[in-house]
């Protein structure tokens, strides 16, 4: 029961983008850690995301 709720909450966070930074870190560790360097910090990541997300058609009638 608790596990189901926890999974639902995780999905809800993913749906809303609340966990975007955590997902970015996971992705970075998996794919880019080997190249060296450091991942973006939370603030820089959020700024970069927002700039990227609003480049194209985002909302419809």
């Amino acid at each position, binding site marked *: 029961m608790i596990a189901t709720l926890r999974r639902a909450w995780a999905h809800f966070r993913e749906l809303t983008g609340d966990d975007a930074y955590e997902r970015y870190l996971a992705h970075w560790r998996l794919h880019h850690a080997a190249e060296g360097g450091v991942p973006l910090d939370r603030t820089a990541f959020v700024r970069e995301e927002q700039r990227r997300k609003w480049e194209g058609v985002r*909302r419809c*009638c």
Partner: protein
Amino acid sequence: MTSTTARRLPRPLSMIGWSAVIVLGTFALAAIALNRGESVDAMWFIVAAVCLYALGYRFYSAFLAAKVFALDPTRATPAERFNDGRDFMPTNRWIVFGHHFAAIAGPGPLIGPTLAAQFGYLPGTLWILIGAVLGGCVQDFVALFCSIRRDGRSLGQMARDELGPIGGAVALIGVMAIMIILIAVLGLVVVNAMRNSPWATSTVAATIPIAVLIGLFMRHLRPGRVLEGTAIGVVLLLAAVFGGGWIDDHPTLRTWFDYDAPALALMVILYGFAAAVLPVWLLLAPRDYLSTFMKIGTIVALAIAIIILNPQVQMPALTQFIDGTGPIFGGNVFPFVFITIACGAISGFHSLIASGTTPKLLANERDARFIGYGAMAMESFVAVMAMVAACVLEPGIYFAINSPAGVVGADPAVAVATISSWGFPVTADQMAALASDMGEGTLFARTGGAPSLAVGMASIFSSAFGNTLLSVWYHFAIMFEALFILTTVDAGTRVARFMLQDLLGNVVPALGRTSWYPSVLICSGLVVAGWGYFLYFGTIDPLGGINSLWPLFGIANQMLAAIALCVATTVLVKSGRVRFAWVTGLPLVWLVTVTSVAAWEKLFSPDLRVGFLSHANDLAAQLASGSLADAAAAQAPRLIFNDRLDAALTLFFLVTVWVLIVETVRICHAALSGRRCPPLAETPYVPTRLAEAER
């Protein structure tokens, strides 16, 4: 989702189940279609819609996925091949569905059905259901499919690749034009909802500082904490609804928020410009989060309320206005019901989303069916609910709210007499009581659909959730509509600005630099001036600007759908699937017929409320003969010019769509007869390496 369930069930059981859905759906459709003279349970609308979508999804979309598009689960998607953890990222199908639905579902499916209810509930409801299952869902699905097979390219790029430079240019200009008209008409809807209503105006105004506050919170205090920011924002928005009531009761404060329509239009224009040039994080992004949450929450609440309450639909199945004399907008049921309801049945705009962010997120090609077809079925369901909300009002009240003063008369006594004479009894006392229940000064001539939808929603909510605070529910509904209409205004202005910068960049390279501030100011200014012009003159149009702007919007939106279907048909023909070309070809033929007839009537109809040119000529004749009063005579030259401008735009849409049709036929013919044409731009097959378990 259904296919896997069906596979799990033993075959006979599954057949019995689907036969039951067919029987139930037929029964529900019969209940709403054959009813004459009595009120119908709203439940039948819901049942008919759900059965039809389930059947369409289970059988037609399965056929499309397997036979027509031959979706290949072993083929790597752009998300997998270009996975950069950002734009391209394999994502859980339910999450993509959520994002896609949030992006496609705007105010369109709420407003169109509300306006089209003037024909009675039947034409609009049938078009929403059939149009979605055979047209809209197919369009979204095929646009998504084409884009996934082309590295997630946009509709404009695909049109250029498959149809050549003419097709590409037409698509780009079409998108710009539809943006301008769309924003103008949506702005008009908000303005009409706020007109001389301190409660609505102050609540809507409060959404701006609330969004800014959340923007600052998510930028500086808690970066990226979307849920925290949204939760605070939603609480503040609800407080703003109550606060608006308090301001409305306050003798001095209420005068600060009491404006007529032209003044409000200027404010919306100023606001639109500010939103376009301010940084995104400050206003646009937080407003978008808030509006998405409110939108989905309210739609779910409305569905639950309709199911609990099962209200009676009071509107007749058909009204006499199918002959084109309707007060809300002029024009016969054919073609105008198909133009008025674009979003919810088939909406060309979706092809931009389906070829924008969504194809870059799909983990597996097979998901295109659930997301493309499924999300549109869901939006169509929203349109059915809007139709129900409009039709549960007493028809007399519905017409009193939605008819412009220029048609029924500005004086309440005259207006109710006119409307009652049509066979829809309503009294001035009834309207006054309703307005006072809703906390408004008057509800006469509140054109645009938002107020009548809000009255419908308020009565459904207040009876379903055992609450008698009608006025609070009403202003909650207005706030909810205004919130995401203004989000569309902001986001649309921004997109149109990018396109204009791109376009002007070809002439003046400096203007093409999207973040160069002078270019941002100039291009945003031009875009805002474009829609602001139509918006402002929509507010002073005596026939109510909706009468001329909404059909223009519908024609433009259907034209965009025609562009997407042209591209899709060309792709099917070129990839050797000409025997299935009817899948996109038939909706295309239907749309082109409907838009062409509608555009022709808007241009040349002798009916003054339909034909732009005859209205202009009539006004010009009146002006010349001196039969106009002073105020009207002063306005007349501007109105005449606007009519001719609207006519020119309509002609432009008509020509555009036909140029594209000719190009499509030419390319398809060339492809079939083995002559030279742009080759199929599909990316070669790459096998997927994502394990099933990872998805």
